[in-house]
């Protein structure tokens, strides 16, 4: 237990150190309580469900040429907002880059950035899944600390 907990903590810290997550994630953790003991994970799950759909939409839109940059920018704006909900830092950075290319009318740049975005999105998902799984195994750290 203890070892697992330590591992969980390390995993969590690296997510921040490596720039995958930002302060928003901590906000979510602070919201977690007895009423919602798995709040963070629920939010992450909700995010991934929603964002996967969004990515598909954007992908389809990118396939249509000539590119409708306004539309793409709109989608990405929405996606960025969504990604900000869990503090997906790297994903957000790619979103911003994508929007820059949209504004510049650079279709090539948009497509490249979109690929990078998908990668970041997938990477974070894997990292979070591993993290939550371990966290569940390690047991709620608070409970462990709380006197019975």
């Amino acid at each position, binding site marked *: 237990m203890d070892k697992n907990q330590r591992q969980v903590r390390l995993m969590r810290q690296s997510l921040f150190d490596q720039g995958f997550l930002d302060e928003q994630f901590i906000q979510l953790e602070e919201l977690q309580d007895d009423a919602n003991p798995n709040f963070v994970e629920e939010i992450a799950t*909700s995010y991934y469900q929603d964002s996967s759909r969004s990515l598909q939409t954007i992908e389809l839109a990118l396939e249509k040429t000539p590119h409708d940059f306004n539309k793409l920018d709109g989608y990405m704006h929405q996606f960025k907002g969504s990604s900000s909900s869990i503090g997906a830092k790297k994903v957000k950075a790619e979103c911003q880059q994508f929007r820059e290319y949209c504004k510049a009318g650079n279709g090539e740049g948009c497509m490249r950035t979109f690929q990078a975005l998908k990668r970041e999105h997938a990477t974070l998902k894997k990292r979070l899944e591993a993290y939550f799984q371990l966290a569940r195994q390690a047991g709620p750290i608070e409970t462990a600390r709380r006197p019975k």
Partner: protein
Amino acid sequence: MESSFSSPRNDSFPAGLRVLVVDDDPTWLKILEKMLKKCSYEVTTCGLARDALNLLREKKDGYDIVVSDVNMPDMDGFKLLEHVGLEMDLPVIMMSVDGETSRVMKGVQHGACDYLLKPIRMKELRNIWQHVFRKKIHEIRDIESHESIEGIQLIRNGSDQYDEGYFFSAEDLTSSRKRKDVDNKYDDKDFSDCSSAKKARVVWSVDLHQKFVKAVHQIGFDKVGPKKILDLMNVPWLTRENVASHLQKYRLYLSRLQKENDIKSSFGGTKHSDYSSKDLQGILSVQNSINIQQNDVAHGSYRFSGNNLVAQNADPKSNEGDIKGIVSEPVAEPKKGTTGNIPDSQKTRSSQMDFNSSYAETQKGLVGNVPDSQKIRSSQMRVNHSFASVESEVNLTAFDSTIPATYSWNKIQLEKEHKPLIQLNNGFSKPQLPGPQHHFQADQLQSIPSISSRPSIPGGDVTGSSKSKPSYSEYTNHHGSHVSPTISPTISATDSFPGQTKSCVVDHQLSETISTSTSNMKNQGINLSTDLESAQRNLILGSTSPFASLDDEFQICWYQGDCYGMNLELQNVEFSEYTDPTHVTEVPAHLYDALRFEYPCDPSEYSVLDQGLFIA
């Protein structure tokens, strides 16, 4: 009357604050819900703007504050913002991941109390109660200041603007002071409760407003004064102060309409479609649309009934078509909201509000088309202006405690910064804000003169001049939707102009006048609506878009007054005759029965409405 005010949150404010969160992002919705719950607030979530509006309309007094995202698929967040501000007068907080200054500014222009950037911190949400509290305080202040507003300044200021010089002389104001004693209880009721944050204001029902408008017309815009109006109206319990503030609002309303018309004209026959296509881009857009509507409606069919009722002729349908962007949406929605969801008084109100808005919109269209009627309208408008004298928010609230939307609208307006939005009105170019408190510009009111008549157009107008009650309902719905759009512009304008608030006032007054007239005309039945419509149209035409916006505003004000139905009824009724209005209380009931088929307007309703107004 206060019963509905009490809510759990009163005990341990801000705990229990009833928040409605609107966001199309399900993840954010969950997060916000959790955050707000942690603040001990009562949270309701909504994924669609339309659903949110429905919820708000169903339970007018069910929420204290709305938190909404800016980008939503079914409706622009700004539009929702306007609707909420107009109809429910609730504080609205906008959210977005986009923090661009222009966006934030737009939010503020549309009436947002605050603009939060995503990701949102919990501490930011923790403090949202301050907006509810602030609004409450302002409302109380408005009511209290209402009494002190003589409107003289406004009038004077306003007169400069308008060539017609509609403004009542100071003597009128002072001489009517004696009226104050007539029924101080109303005043007391209205204002003495301010401290408790529960105000019993004079509700400017449609009947009352119609009486008012009729009186104004009878006196003549340039000679109008609260005392004269009061005398003519012959409403024993009404005080000169009530009339003065209502007049201010009316004038503001008119001036606003005028401005809108002006703006519209500057755009050269804006088409509704243009307008409709986007949400109001600040006041301008609204105004333009308003103008457009007026133009459309301006056919000669509007008879200038000589009453204040501005032939809003903007048949709802024309509005709808024209205002597509802004109007159509609201129209569609309000209908649903108003008819389906809002029970009784609330519905009435919404519909009324919608009416107003639709009115306003129609009016715009009319502006262009009716040549001769325009003259009439302009004169009407002018009259309105004088009536409209900038009324402080208080006035508005005074009249319609019942109609929260209207009421709040004004308030919001006052609270917000006033930017000189409305370019408008020819005459009103200068925003003259009569008293310090009410910044609204007399100009705006002036432009609205025609609008007042609009109230008469409710339902009927919407569909066409010949409509009678049935159309009324249409109108109501229509109006509801319109109201939002049109009113929003106005409101935004108000923000920029203090005067806007006045517009509401104007509306209110107008509606009152109209209501008054209607009551008189009750006997005549709805057929008058046609007359009114035409009259209104004429008014609208003449007045140009500013009126339209004023109408909306005006109408909105009415509704707050509690007799939305009445207002509508009035519209149908031709108020050319200024028979002594039956007692106001009588009228409403009568009107409702006769004209409004849907919303029973009885005193008890009013009280409910009053409560409804009290958002906090």
